[in-house]
Structures are given as C-alpha cells and as structure tokens.
C-alpha cells in the first residue's frame, strides 16, 4: 500500500468516526471537538487532492472560526442554567429511513456522472489560478459574498444588541 493510500484510508476512517461521533455523542462539548477533528481530517483529504490552498482556508475558517463560535454558543447556553438539557432524540427509525433514501439517491446520482477517464494535467500553480478566477470569472459572486458578509455582520449585531 502506497503512502497516499494509507493516508487516505487513515483520514477516511478518522473522518467517518468523528462524523458519527458528532451526531451520536450525548455531550455537546464532545460533539464540537469531534467536529473539529472531522474538519481537520477533511483538510487532510484536501491536501491529498492537491488542494493546499483550500486545506489551509478550511483550517483557518472552520477550526479557527466556526468551531470557536460554536464553543462560545455552547458555553453560553449550557453553563448559565444549573442543570443541563437532557439530549433526547426523536424519530430515530423514520430519520434513519430517510437518511438511507438520501444515501441511495446520492449513490445513484454519482454513479451516473460521466468523468474523463484520465485527469488532464492540473494548472501549474493552482493557488494562482484560484486567485485569478476569483477576480475575473467569479468576480460577481465574490462581490456578492462581501454583501452577504455585511448582512451577516449587521444581523449578528442586531441579535447581540442590548434590549432597550
């Protein structure tokens, strides 16, 4: 087994195990830690797919940003009241059935896709290509993203403001 294959199987195992743990863990704080692990494992898979830029952004944005905010929300909502919310689940059977259907649908969909048999050589400097694409072909979504961020900022501020 080559080094790459070993890395893939290792990361895949970590990713699936931690993904399951996020969903199944009874402890909210453990869930978020497993989520962090899953996100880092995904970054590792991005590295295997030669997407270094995306791997770095993934860690910077998710692990540095998203996880931190989720932890903050957990601390705010869990510790202010004395007893912790009992985590109950609902409709496990129905939920499982629907999820199974989703999985089958995805598999059918994916197997129908036609892919080129041999991958063409990737651009010499992918990071440079991404940067160029962002500011030329994708400049409109890029700018819209800026507007979205402004809206998100205002929205978060609205909820955080003091009650008058």
């Amino acid at each position, binding site marked *: 087994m*080559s080094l*790459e294959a070993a890395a*893939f199987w290792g990361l*895949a195992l970590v*990713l*699936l195990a931690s*993904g*399951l743990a*996020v*969903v199944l863990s009874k402890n909210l704080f453990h*869930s978020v830690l497993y989520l962090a692990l899953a*996100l880092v494992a*995904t970054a590792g898979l*991005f590295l*295997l*797919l030669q*997407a270094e*830029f*995306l791997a770095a*952004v993934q860690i910077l*944005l*998710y692990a540095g*940003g*998203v996880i931190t*905010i*989720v932890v903050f*929300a*957990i601390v*705010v*909502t869990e510790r202010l*009241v004395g007893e912790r*919310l009992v*985590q*109950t689940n*609902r*409709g496990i059977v129905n*939920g*499982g059935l*629907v*999820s199974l259907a*989703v*999985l089958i649908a995805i598999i059918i969909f*994916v197997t129908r896709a036609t*892919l*080129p048999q041999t*991958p*063409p*050589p*990737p651009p010499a400097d*992918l990071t440079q290509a*991404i940067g160029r*694409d962002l500011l030329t072909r*994708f400049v409109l979504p890029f700018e819209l*993203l800026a507007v*979205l961020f402004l809206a*998100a*900022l205002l*929205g*978060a501020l609205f909820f*955080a403001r003091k009650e008058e």
Partner: protein
Amino acid sequence: MVPESYYTALSAILFTIGVVGVLVRRNPLVIFMSIELMLNAANLALVAFGHRFGAADAQVLAFFVMTVAAAEVAVGLAIIVTIFRLRRRLSVDELSIMRW
C-alpha cells in the same frame, strides 16, 4: 493513486451522517454541526471532481461554500443564543415561536 470515486463515496457517507444528525437530534447546536458536516461533505465531493477535471473552478466554488458557511454560523448562532435567552432552554421545538 486513490481514485476520485473513493472520495465521492466517502463524501456521500459523510453527507448521510449529517442528514441523520439533522433529522434525529433535537438540540439546534447539534443540528448546526450536522449541517456543517453536510457542507463539508459537499466540499469534499467538489474538490474530488475538480481534481478529476484538473480545473480550479471546483476549488473556487468550495471556497465560496466555506465562506458562506462561516457567515451562516455567525447569524445562526446569534439566533440560537437569542432564543435561549428568551426561553432558557434549547430545543428545536422552541423554534416554532419564530412563525407569525
């Protein structure tokens, strides 16, 4: 060389795990994390396909997904915390107060 189809299979399973989380769990924070898992799975599939086609487009799209997810977390968690402040407990059943 690991074929891209392995990555897409992995992504499909991860996505399904996320779906289970959204459907089965009651705590909005866990649902939130499950949504992150699903977005992550979608990104993985995008990057895998992009690798196959040898183009940067997929990575640009994945980049957009990540940034939108970050914005979504900021607003979504602000809403959750606000609801918690009003209700003192946290369950998606409480979210019915948001209709009008």
